[in-house]
């Protein structure tokens, strides 16, 4: 079991030596005739049984206590086998710092002649009485992390960051809170100075004002007199007008920085704000176009997709030498005829050819007066007609700088999701006064509410499933489902059939 095993089995290399050194093991080799051998055998068996029960090598403990030469060692082995015990156990091990010789916690002496305070052998596993994080230390650690990250930004991040001027057209509607909060939170995390110009169609409203006040950013909230029209075309035109108005504000106030267009339903990544700091005059970035496909089965022509996989991306296209060669635009052919016309149509909403949000410009381009403005920028006061995209502001499209490793990185996503025009929402999303209609919940595991609840008004949709496409299917499934339920009351089946018919 000893040396040959050592040579052959490498896996058990560490534990073998212990087993070979303990005198107990000699019992297996010794003859069975001598009483001493029998005694050792019995002792060995006893120790094995006790070890099985306790979960650690009892024999070693016995020998340690009997034969150890070290003084004042209080040694409690860690009960690691029982996981719960290990958690609650408070284990200490006082190592003897006897400088005379290396005192092992094992019953054979060490032959070293040097004075080392490090002891070879089994040590206790130190666990402090409350091995859980201390909140004060966690805060300190976070402060250290912040400081380290600040230093990293100083060294490797953008040098001399410029202010970012964000232009957002918006208007009051159900989804405004959703969209605007998203943009607002993205802007709040941006590590650079920010000025947020919010243009609101339909005039300045308390809704929007209270939303953006929560951001703590420098905001310029401007109202636009026209109301937002209902068709997507008109909406895009009005938004372009609002953005131009915002650019005029930038010119009037002589704001210095980088102008970017953040539509309120877009999603921006943090790398975007780092990347646009690299723009010199006029830059373009790749925008991921996310379209909701309402009619899944018919919208895509499979064969065409396989031949020419089209990416839903709008942005600059570069040639091999990383120079601007053209533009990627979103392919609208698969959606021909099935696009949404009005805002509340449940069809695919398509972007314009080139969205405003894919462009950034240096605010100095908009300033009045000569300075060192390049010649290819048009004066916005001279523009009268509609500007579809910022490319209409410049005369020479080849000067556009492609950002995001030449358009290969998609740093923001364009999305248009709106609710029905007649959908109502509580002003400022606060329910005041409280609703006086209560809907008893039926599809819960809790026992039914006492049946004397007034069968007042059980409004239609409430908790039930949303869009019902094929009415017959759901009716049968619902009744099937209902028949299985235990807590069925007759009124329920009546109401269910009633509103199934209503559908």
């Amino acid at each position, binding site marked *: 079991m000893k040396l040959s095993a050592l040579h052959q089995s490498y896996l058990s290399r*560490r534990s073998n*030596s212990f087993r070979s050194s303990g005198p107990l093991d000699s019992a297996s080799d010794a003859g069975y005739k001598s009483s001493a051998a029998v005694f050792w055998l019995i002792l060995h068996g006893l120790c094995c049984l006790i070890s099985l029960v306790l979960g650690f090598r009892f024999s070693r403990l016995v020998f340690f206590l009997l034969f150890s030469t070290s003084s004042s060692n209080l040694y409690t082995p860690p009960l690691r086998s029982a996981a719960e015990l290990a958690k609650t156990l408070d284990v200490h091990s006082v190592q003897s710092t006897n400088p005379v010789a290396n005192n092992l916690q094992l019953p054979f002496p060490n032959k070293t002649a040097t004075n080392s305070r490090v002891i070879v052998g089994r040590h*206790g*596993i130190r666990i402090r009485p409350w091995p859980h994080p201390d909140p004060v230390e966690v805060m300190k650690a976070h402060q250290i*992390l912040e400081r380290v990250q600040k230093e*990293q*930004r100083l060294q490797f991040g953008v040098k001399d960051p410029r202010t970012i001027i964000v232009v957002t057209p918006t208007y009051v509607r159900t989804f405004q809170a959703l969209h605007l909060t998203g943009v607002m939170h993205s802007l709040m995390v941006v590590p650079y100075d920010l000025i947020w110009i919010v243009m609101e169609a339909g005039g300045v409203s308390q809704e929007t004002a209270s939303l953006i006040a929560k951001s703590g950013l420098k905001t310029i909230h401007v109202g636009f007199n026209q109301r937002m029209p209902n068709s997507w075309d008109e909406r895009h035109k009005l938004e372009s007008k609002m953005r131009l108005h915002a650019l005029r504000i930038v010119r009037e106030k002589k704001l210095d920085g980088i102008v970017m267009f953040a539509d309120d339903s877009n999603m921006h990544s943090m790398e975007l704000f780092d990347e646009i700091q690299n723009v010199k005059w006029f830059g373009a970035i790749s925008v991921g176009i996310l379209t909701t496909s309402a009619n899944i089965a018919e919208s895509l022509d499979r064969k065409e997709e396989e031949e020419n996989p089209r990416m839903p991306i709008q942005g600059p296209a570069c040639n091999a030498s990383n120079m601007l060669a053209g533009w990627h635009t979103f392919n609208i052919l698969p959606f021909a005829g099935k696009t949404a016309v009005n805002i509340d149509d449940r069809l695919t909403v398509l972007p314009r050819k080139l969205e405003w949000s894919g462009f950034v410009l240096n605010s100095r381009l908009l300033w009045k007066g000569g300075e060192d403005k390049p010649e290819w920028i048009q004066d916005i006061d001279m523009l009268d007609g509609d500007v579809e995209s910022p490319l209409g502001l410049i005369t020479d499209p080849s000067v556009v700088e492609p950002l995001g490793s030449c358009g290969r990185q998609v740093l923001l996503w364009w999305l248009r999701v709106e609710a029905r025009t007649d959908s109502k929402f509580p002003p400022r999303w606060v329910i005041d006064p409280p609703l006086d209609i209560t809907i008893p919940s039926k599809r819960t595991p809790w026992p039914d509410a006492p049946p004397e609840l007034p069968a007042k008004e059980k409004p239609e949709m409430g908790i039930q499933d949303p869009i019902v496409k094929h009415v017959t299917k759901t009716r049968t499934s619902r009744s099937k489902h209902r028949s299985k339920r235990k807590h069925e009351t007759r009124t329920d089946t009546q109401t269910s059939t009633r509103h199934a018919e209503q559908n």
Partner: protein
Amino acid sequence: MEIWRWVFIGIIFLADFIVKIEPFKLGRSQPTERISGSAGDVLEDDPVGRLKVFVYELPSKYNKKILQKDPRCLNHMFAAEIYMHRFLLSSPVRTLNPEEADWFYTPVYTTCDLTPNGLPLPFKSPRMMRSAIQLISSNWPYWNRTEGADHFFLVPHDFGACFHYQEEKAIERGILPMLQRATLVQTFGQRNHVCLKEGSITIPPYAPPQKMQTHLIPEKTPRSIFVYFRGLFYDVGNDPEGGYYARGARAAVWENFKDNPLFDISTEHPTTYYEDMQRAVFCLCPLGWAPWSPRLVEAVIFGCIPVIIADDIVLPFADAIPWEEIGVYVDEKDVPNLDTILTSIPPEVILRKQRLLANPSMKQAMLFPQPAQSGDAFHQVLNGLARKLPHDKSVYLKPGERVLNWTAGPVGDLKPW
């Protein structure tokens, strides 16, 4: 008079303020700091011209044939012995004239007898070394001249020239008696330990430079992990009860900090191990069965401050690199308070350590690149050897004088190889 005193004080204050700004500006453009250890600013010394090394021509059964039998030896953490040989063969410090050599190198690959799992078996190494020394002492007169005092050997195994993986056995054997006068270049280093001889040179374990190079991430990725560690806490195969492996220190780390969100520690083997290290501020480098580990090299390359939990350890090139200023030493008995210790380090100290780690000569000194580059670990070894020159006159023995006992050691070692 009063006014002039205040003006004087004001000027001094202003001057102090201005002087403070200057180093800050320097810090922005040059985020590193020069490293100088106890031997001075020696990391960038060039050993060429300061020493001459003669490489013995041993029969290929000592080196090439062993490597041919198992080419895995080139990739494991003990590969330094092979790469050192290759480096010396083509280095300008090599001399073909042994009369003018300051140091003599014996290329014997003692750590290349691998198990199927890839772990080196040291059982034949003493015999191999002994046979090699017998060869060089009988074929060349230089060994007998000094009994090996101007020879150096690379012994990168767990406990160096004690040639065993188990600490008790290694201590029992002690350093091979024939190597008692030679200079040992080894990865093991622990103060007041039998297996660390006075005057040994500690080197880092081999870590593949190309592999680490391919996993670099952009430096502006913010470091968001506070403490990072991946590895075993309990060696269930060899020490199921715990307390023996790593002297219980790794187990203590696990038991105390397994539910602490600041500590990203686990036993998994993620594919993003190197990338994660670059996103961490502190990387734990606790001892295992031996006190050294390649984690130190990885931490230095990836700019993560090493937290060294190994009592009395001697780190690589300890005289050239001031490790106390670069890493954090934690006593094994203080492991339960590791979080307090790490969070109480002032941020300026942490930033300074990161600056020292960012020094390219620091990273270079930990690597064994092929082909060798200036300032790398090969050159640091040569620098270390050069610092030990000139040899003391007492190393030269009178002809016929014998100091070493050639028959000392376990009987098994005396068998020929």
